[in-house]
């Protein structure tokens, strides 16, 4: 009987192995099926608008239960590399992602929502950011339906992401209850932070001091307020700059109470903000902070367009 020799079999095996390699790579690429922001796609683009948020959490199922109960979000599980990932939807529209990342025992990490700001050309905005002192935490990467995105930290340390959506940015409508309505940057120096983001997105910056004199800058594009830059509130040494995203709610106090009943915490009790509606900050069961903001349909006085 003739002995099997690998070298003799190589010419036959090699094509099969090469096919497997190609197939494996294709399968990995197919894992990254982040949903498009808009279906059908649009041509709308709004530089500097908060268009997406990803929660990083150690317990995906618990996060789904918490946010689903609070805001009426529904979820669709997808695989993203080795992570568990759930797309949060409202009225059938994808609005956020929940990424599961285990925390090993003994480690202390801060679950948080990552804010994605719309950028027309991610590479160009990234270069501008780095030139002005930002650090690249995750370099630019393209996803077939989503577009191109990367993660940065600004010069003061606040983490944010850039996204060039291939299906257009989320349209400029008043968010419905349960949708993102606002983002605020909390920085050591709000003015310097505003200057940094102005270089990236061409924001118009309006100085609207808080009632207590704290710096509160409104960042706008297309004649719409997109975000604010705030000086970090005083009274604590354990603080670091960060972005905070707000969900529109009908009754902030009710949602805050529901959050506590669901295992969350209230970080900032409901209180009236500039527009007269109530805002609050809660933490989910894993500790990720998220804002609540009341906004009635009549709160927007003048439509600038």
């Amino acid at each position, binding site marked *: 009987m003739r002995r099997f020799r690998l070298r003799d079999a190589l010419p036959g095996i090699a094509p099969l192995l090469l096919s497997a390699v190609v197939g494996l790579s294709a399968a990995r690429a197919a894992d990254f099926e982040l949903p498009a922001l808009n279906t059908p796609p649009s041509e709308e683009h709004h530089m500097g608008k908060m268009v997406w948020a990803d929660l990083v959490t150690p317990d995906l199922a618990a996060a789904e239960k918490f946010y689903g109960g609070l805001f009426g979000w529904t979820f669709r599980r997808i695989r993203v590399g080795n992570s568990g990932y759930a797309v949060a939807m409202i009225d059938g529209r994808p609005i956020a992602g929940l990424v599961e990342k285990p925390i090993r025992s003994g480690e202390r990490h801060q679950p948080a929502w990552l804010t994605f700001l719309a950028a027309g050309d991610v590479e160009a905005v990234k270069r501008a950011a780095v030139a002005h002192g930002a650090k690249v935490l995750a370099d630019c990467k393209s996803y077939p339906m989503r577009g191109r995105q990367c993660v940065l930290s600004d010069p003061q340390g606040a983490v944010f992401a850039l996204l060039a959506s291939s299906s257009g940015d989320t349209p400029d409508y008043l968010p419905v209850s349960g949708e993102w309505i606002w983002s605020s940057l909390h920085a050591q120096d709000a*003015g310097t932070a505003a200057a940094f983001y102005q270089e990236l997105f061409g924001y118009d910056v309006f100085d609207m001091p808080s009632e207590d004199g704290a710096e509160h800058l409104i960042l706008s594009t297309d004649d719409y307020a997109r975000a604010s830059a705030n000086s970090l509130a005083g009274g604590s040494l354990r603080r670091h700059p960060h972005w905070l995203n707000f969900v529109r709610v009908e009754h902030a106090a009710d949602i805050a109470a529901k959050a506590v009943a669901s295992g969350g915490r209230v970080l900032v009790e409901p209180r009236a903000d500039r527009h007269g509606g109530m805002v609050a900050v809660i933490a989910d069961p894993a500790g990720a902070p998220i804002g609540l903001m009341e906004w009635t349909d009549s709160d927007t*006085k003048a439509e600038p367009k």
Partner: protein
Amino acid sequence: MKTMRTPLLAGLMGSVTLAIFSACTVTGVGVDGSVGVDYGYPGAYYEPYGYDYGGWGGGYWVGPSRGGHRDDHGDGRRDAGGRDAGGRGGHAPAYRPAPRGRSAPSIPGRSRGR
């Protein structure tokens, strides 16, 4: 025949190595300074531990205005602390302030389907 097999074998080994590298997770450095597994998705970053929202007093505002308020813009007005708005403590701000006379806009007010 032998000369043909050697590059073939080398190519095969290279392909397998490439496959292993592309299929496996790689090590990355998180924003928290921890070195760990990069889950292949750029959004999977934990932030530095410890948020503290102490200090949000009643006058600490974070949200947008309702719009249409010309005096919301800090063109020459003074804030509650008596400082010139548009430049802290009378100094020119680091950013370029919006042109004088423009009021701060609000968020979009148009409803879906309208």
